[in-house]
C-alpha cells in the first residue's frame, strides 16, 4: 500500500465548547497511481480526512503512512503533497507564472528548469500565454486550471482535491473532469478526490469510498 490511514479519529470543539466527533476510526488504503473518491453528504468529514492527509489538521488518534514512512506528525510543507482547493486559493498578489512557479521556487530549482516546467504544465492545462495575467483577470475555469497546474508542477506524491469543480458551471465541470482524469492517467498520479457529486465520482474514480456522518 502506498498511502495508508489507520484508525484515524478527529474531534473538534464547537462554539459551545462541546467536543464533536467528526471522523471516527477511519481506515483507508490507496495504491500507487490509484484515483480514490471520497463521497458523502456535507458534514460527514470527507474534507477533514483530506486535510489530515495534507497535514493541515492533526488527527486525535491513529496514524498516516506514506510509502512506508509514518507522516502523522509531519508538517504540510514536508509531505510533498499538493492540494487543489474548492475556492482555488490562488495567491492574489502573484501572476499566473508566479503562482505556478511557487512550489518550484520553494524547492530552489534553477531558474531555467522552473521556466521550462511552468511552460510545459501551462500548455498541458491549456493556459500557455497567460503567464502574466493576474488571478482576478481569469475566469473561474481558468483559475481552477492554474490551481491544478500549480499542484501538478511539483510532481506531488499524492494529489489532493477538495471539491475542485463545485464552483464551475455544469458544462465546464464535465469538460474539466475529463481533463483531470486524462492528466492523472498520464502522470500516474495517486489522487484522493473529495466530492459530493456521485456522478463525478463514478466518472473519475478507480474506487469510491462512501462516508457517513459519525452518529452522535
Amino acid at each position: 500500500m502506498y498511502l495508508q490511514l489507520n484508525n484515524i479519529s478527529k474531534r473538534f470543539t464547537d462554539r459551545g465548547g462541546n467536543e464533536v466527533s467528526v471522523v471516527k476510526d477511519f481506515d483507508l488504503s490507496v495504491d500507487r497511481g490509484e484515483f480514490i473518491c471520497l463521497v458523502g453528504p456535507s458534514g460527514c468529514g470527507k474534507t477533514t480526512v483530506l486535510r489530515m492527509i495534507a497535514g493541515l489538521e492533526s488527527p486525535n488518534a491513529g496514524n498516516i503512512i506514506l510509502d512506508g514512512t509514518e507522516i502523522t506528525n509531519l508538517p504540510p510543507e514536508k509531505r510533498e503533497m499538493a492540494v487543489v482547493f474548492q475556492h482555488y486559493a490562488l495567491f492574489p498578489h502573484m501572476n499566473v507564472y508566479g503562482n505556478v512557479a511557487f512550489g518550484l521556487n520553494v524547492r530552489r530549482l534553477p531558474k531555467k528548469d522552473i521556466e521550462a516546467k511552468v511552460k510545459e504544465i501551462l500548455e498541458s492545462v491549456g493556459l500557455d500565454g497567460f503567464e502574466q495575467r493576474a488571478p482576478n483577470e481569469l475566469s473561474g475555469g481558468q483559475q481552477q486550471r492554474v490551481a491544478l497546474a500549480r499542484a501538478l508542477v511539483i510532481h506531488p506524491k499524492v494529489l489532493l482535491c477538495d471539491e475542485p469543480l463545485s464552483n464551475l458551471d455544469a458544462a465546464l465541470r464535465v469538460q474539466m473532469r475529463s481533463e483531470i482524469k486524462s492528466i492523472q492517467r498520464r502522470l500516474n498520479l495517486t489522487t484522493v478526490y473529495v466530492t459530493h457529486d456521485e456522478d463525478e465520482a463514478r466518472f473519475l474514480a478507480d474506487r469510491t469510498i462512501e462516508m457517513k456522518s459519525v452518529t452522535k
Partner: protein
Amino acid sequence: MEREGWKIKLLIFAVSALVLLFIAYPLLKVFSSCTASGFIHFFKAPYFMRPFFNSCCLGAGVATVGTIVGFVLAYAVERAKVPFFRVFDLIGTIPVIAPPFIVAISSIMLFGRNGFVVRRFLEGHEFFSVYGFWGLLITETLAYFPTAFLVLKGTLSAIHPTFEEASRSMGAGRARTFWKITAPLCLPGILSSFLLLFIESLADFGNPIILSGGYQVLSVQAYLQITAVYDMGGGAVMAIMLLLPSLIAYVVQKYIVGQRSFVTVAGKVPRSTRKSGKTTILCLELFCLLLVAVILLCYGMILIGAFVRLWGVDYSFVFDNFIKGLQMGSQYIWGSMILAGVSAPITGILGIIIAYLVTRKKFLGRKVLEFTSMLAFAVPGTVIGIGYIMAFNEPHWFMPWALQGTFWIILFLFVFRNMPVGLQAATAGLAQIDVTIEEAARTLGAGNFILFKKIIFPLLAPAFFSGLIYSFVRAMTQISAVIFVVSGKWNLFTVFLLGLVENGELSIAAAMSVVLVVIVLLMMGFLKFVIHRWQVKQMVKAAW
C-alpha cells in the same frame, strides 16, 4: 488546527515576553510604586486633587466641543455635500500630522502677552487669557477634533440613506428626520468620539505645558512632581489617577459602545441624491469656512512667524530663524530622525507579527497578548514615560542593563507605544485573506519563513505601510512619554521645540515647527512613492 512547530512556539514566547516587559511591566511598576499613604495624601492635599478635577473638566469640555465640531463638519462633508466639501475633508485631517503643540504656539503668537492681536487691536489688554482653561479648551479642540471628524464621517457614511428616505416619505420633514432618525443612528459614533477625545485631552501634554498657566492639569503636574520635586511616589499616584479615567473611557468605548453599532448593512452604501435644505447648507458652509479660516490662521501664523525677526516687536522678514534653529537643534533633529527611522519599520513588522499570531494561531494567553498590545493606545504618554523611568533605570535579572539614558529606551518606547495602529490595520488585513491561501502555500512546500516573506507580508503590505507612516509621524511629533526618557546624548526634536517655547524663542520655534512638518510631509511622500513602486513590482515580476 495542526500542531505548531517549535519555531512558532518560540516566536509566541518571545513576542509575549517583549510585550510583557515593555508594556505590562512598566505599568505594574507605576502601580507598585504607589502606597496607601500616597493615595491618602493625594485625596487630602488640594494641590493634588485640583489637577485631577481640572483634567477631567477639560477632558469633558474638549470631548463635547470637539465632538460637536467634528459632527457638524462630518455631516457637511458626508451628508450635505456642501460646496467645496472635498477641501473641508482634507483640511479636517491636517492637524493629524502636526506636532502636538503647534496650535499652542500659534495661539500664543496671536493672543499671548506679546501676541499680534493683543498688541495690535487690544492695545495690550488681554480681554481673555490664552493661558488657562479657555485657551486650552480651544487649542485642544482644534488639535483633536479630527479624531471626532474621522469617526463620525465613518458612522455617517455607513448609515443607509434609505432610512432617511423612508422617514421623509412617511411625512417627516428634514429637521424631524435629522433629530429622529439620523442623530439617534449616529449615537454610538458620537459616544465613541466623545470618549476618544476625552482620552486624548487627558493624555495631552504638549498644549498644557505651554498654555496651562495657573490651570494645573494632571499630565503636566505628574511630570513636574517627578522632574522638579523628585517625588517618584507622588508622581506615580498622579499617573494612576490619570490612567484610571482613561482606562475606563477606553474599556467603555471598546467593549460597550463599540459593540452597539446600529450599522447593519454590509457592502457598498448607495449615495443619496437628496439634498439638504438651502438654509442648512448655508449654515454648514459658513461653519466650515469659519473652521477652515481658524485652522489656516493657526498654521499661517506659524509660517509667517518663522520668517519674522522677533515676534511682537520686530516684524521684518528674515531667514535667520531657520539658520539659528538648525544650528542649535541639529543634534535633536538627527536624534528624532534616526530614532523615528529605526523604530518605524520595527513597529510595523512587530504589528504584523502580533496580528498574525493572535488571529491565526491558538495558544494560551492569546487574548491577553492582544489586549496588552492594544493597551498602549489607551494609556496616557505621561504614565508610560513614568513607568519606563521606574522600570528601566537600574539593571534586573531579566534586563541586565540599565536602559535609562540610552538610545534603546527611546527606541522601545516608540516601538511599543506606536504599534497598536499597525496592529489594527494588520488584523483588518488578515481578516480579508482567506486561510486557504496560506494552506496552499504550506502544501506547496513553504515553511514559516517563506510563508511570511512571500505570502503574508506582501498581502499585508498596505497595512504595514500605514502602520509605518503612522509610527514615523508619531515618533517625530510626540512628546508626553519621551520627555521622561530623553538624555543629553539622545534627545528629540519635540523636546527641543518645547525648550524654545519655554525660553520665549517663538520665531525660532515657529521656524522649527515648519521644518518638522516639512520632514514629516517629505517622509510621507517618500513612503507613498515606495509603496507605489512596491505594488507595481509585485505584479510585473513573478514575485520571487
